[in-house]
């Protein structure tokens, strides 16, 4: 396996009322070719900003102020607008959370698929239509020829998401960013879509960056997972490491607060307090204010990601102390 995407110490700022607010701080991730890499976190943690900034799609007010994003070894940030445009949809594609609003309501499904094909390949409308219909079939859209002329609102949510996927894979990109692709969907449909994504990965060896707040989806889909909290990555590891040996207090808290059959009858663990807003973020560990273990140091200096096992990095001052995690585990049982 080789690296396809690497994000190096990326920091993103938001200009608001002449204040510079840190949305992402010093993020580093490396995605290997062919893997499904997950980024998990609660709303507002910056996971979507991170995925959008790969293709420079984040809101205008947000700027990557330092760091670099390398795709196949080339800096994305140094590319011209035109070069970036050429890459979007061709090299790297995206799927968004809400298929209904992400598709243009006044253009036909077919048009929206043909459009991306024609934007990157110099072929006739007719040829493009042929390709589009093939892709539609591939993503499991029934009656593709008829659906081609339908408008998005005529389709159900699941079908719309399939159209989104069809658009995303129409030009056979190497890299697919799926930003909460199933959040708006029902469980049974979610299962279908997740299944489809897995198939795409298997058949085309597409690398997938999957972003979700749902740990269940992550566990089901990903090879490796990064956990984000308040604009920072607090833990990265293989799926097994994250689920079986969560090492950051936040990851642990998250795991424990999910209701699962085995927790029935007992009160759930809950992380006290709320996610700090952008304005409330201070120096030090971002989780300090909600962490049971926090000591003075946590509020003043930032912990760095540290290796706790092979391919398992945690950003916590206590990550190396075995007994602490034990103690911690006891604290809510």
């Amino acid at each position: 396996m080789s690296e396809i995407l690497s994000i190096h110490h990326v920091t993103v700022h938001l200009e608001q009322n002449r204040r510079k607010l840190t949305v992402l701080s010093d993020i580093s991730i490396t995605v290997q070719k062919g893997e499904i890499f997950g980024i998990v976190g609660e709303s507002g943690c910056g996971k979507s900003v991170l995925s959008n900034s790969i293709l420079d799609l984040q809101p205008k007010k947000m700027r990557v102020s330092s760091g670099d994003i390398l795709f196949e070894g080339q800096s994305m940030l140094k590319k011209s607008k035109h070069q970036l445009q050429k890459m979007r949809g061709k090299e790297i594609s995206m799927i968004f959370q809400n298929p209904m609003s992400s598709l243009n309501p006044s253009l036909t499904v077919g048009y929206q698929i043909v459009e991306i094909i024609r934007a990157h390949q110099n072929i006739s409308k007719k040829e493009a239509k042929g390709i589009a219909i093939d892709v539609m079939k591939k993503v499991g859209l029934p009656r593709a020829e008829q659906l081609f002329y339908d408008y998005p609102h005529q389709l159900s949510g699941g079908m719309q998401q399939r159209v989104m996927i069809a658009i995303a894979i129409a030009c056979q990109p190497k890299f697919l960013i799926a930003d909460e692709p199933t959040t708006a969907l029902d469980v049974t449909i979610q299962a279908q879509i997740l299944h489809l994504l897995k198939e795409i990965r298997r058949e085309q060896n597409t690398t997938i960056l999957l972003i979700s707040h749902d740990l269940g989806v992550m566990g089901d889909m990903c090879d490796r997972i990064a956990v984000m909290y308040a604009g920072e990555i607090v833990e990265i590891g293989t799926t097994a490491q994250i689920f079986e040996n969560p090492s950051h207090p936040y990851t642990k808290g998250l795991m424990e607060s999910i209701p699962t059959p085995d927790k029935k009858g007992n009160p759930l663990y809950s992380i006290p307090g709320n996610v700090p807003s952008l304005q409330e973020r201070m120096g030090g560990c971002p989780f300090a204010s909600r962490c049971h273990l926090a000591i003075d140091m946590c509020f003043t200096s930032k912990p760095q990601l540290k290796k706790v096992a092979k391919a398992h990095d945690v950003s916590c001052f206590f990550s190396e102390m075995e007994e602490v995690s034990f103690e911690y585990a006891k604290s809510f049982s």
Partner: protein
Amino acid sequence: MDYVLKKTVSSLFTLFVVIVLVFLAFRIIPGNPANIILGVEATPAQVEELEQKLGLDQTLFEQFIHWFKGVLVLDFGESLRFSEPVLSLIHERMGVTFSLAFMAIVITIFVSIPLGIIAANYKGKFLDVLISIGTQIGLAIPSFWMGIILIMIFGLMLHLISVGGYVPWSENPLRAFKALLFPATAIAIPQIAILVRYLRTTMIEQLNFDYVRTAKSKGLKDSTILLKHVLKNALIPVITIAGLNFGAILAGSLVIEQVYALPGFGRMLITAIGDRDFPLVQGMVVMIAIIAITVNLLVDISYRYLDPKIKLK
């Protein structure tokens, strides 16, 4: 289809209300058409005779039924003043007013769409501020005032307008065009202001929608996104506003025809009100209402078809 039918029925009801209102309104106003026609020296006998001739001696209800029956077959009766069928009088004047309204609409569209796009695209920048100030001022200047100013500048100072020089299109298209250009501009200015503001808002609204990000992520050019994706969606609500303002355009031509001495609908209407030429006034107002209501209906329906989101609901 169902929707079209429903809208049509409710439009017809609106029209009926207008018809009744118009009829009653003009009967309540003091002023006897026979008297106005005959003037102040007429004897009561003469007035009575003319009233009989004009059918004004019938009861209000009879008059209404009589008139309404005619309206159903688009027969608005004869003008009291001109002794000619109202419809042919209307037909004669329609040319000017329609050309005027049409030109105003064309000017409005051709000016406001680019301005709206520019304003939205340069939101908050200098150009946007400039356009915003322009539209605010365009909205604030009363149209009759604008008409006078245009005449003062282009007529008195630059000698570009030939007031009263209107000839029908069939006779001399260039002269007709010249005669209508400035009045159409005067009507168009507030409309442009309204549309630019509206288009700007909807464009900005649309630009924030997720599908724009999708379009970007597909690697489309900015211009393609703006024109092919955003504008189309932004125009849908704008069309409604434009349709609603059709009445305003007609009303605008009513005033502007006065200022520019164009032999149009509005001028005839105002004289007809003064004359208490009931059939003519009623015919014209009903005609205006029919046009305004039809345009609104068409806008409603086309909106339905333009906006696929509501088409099936």
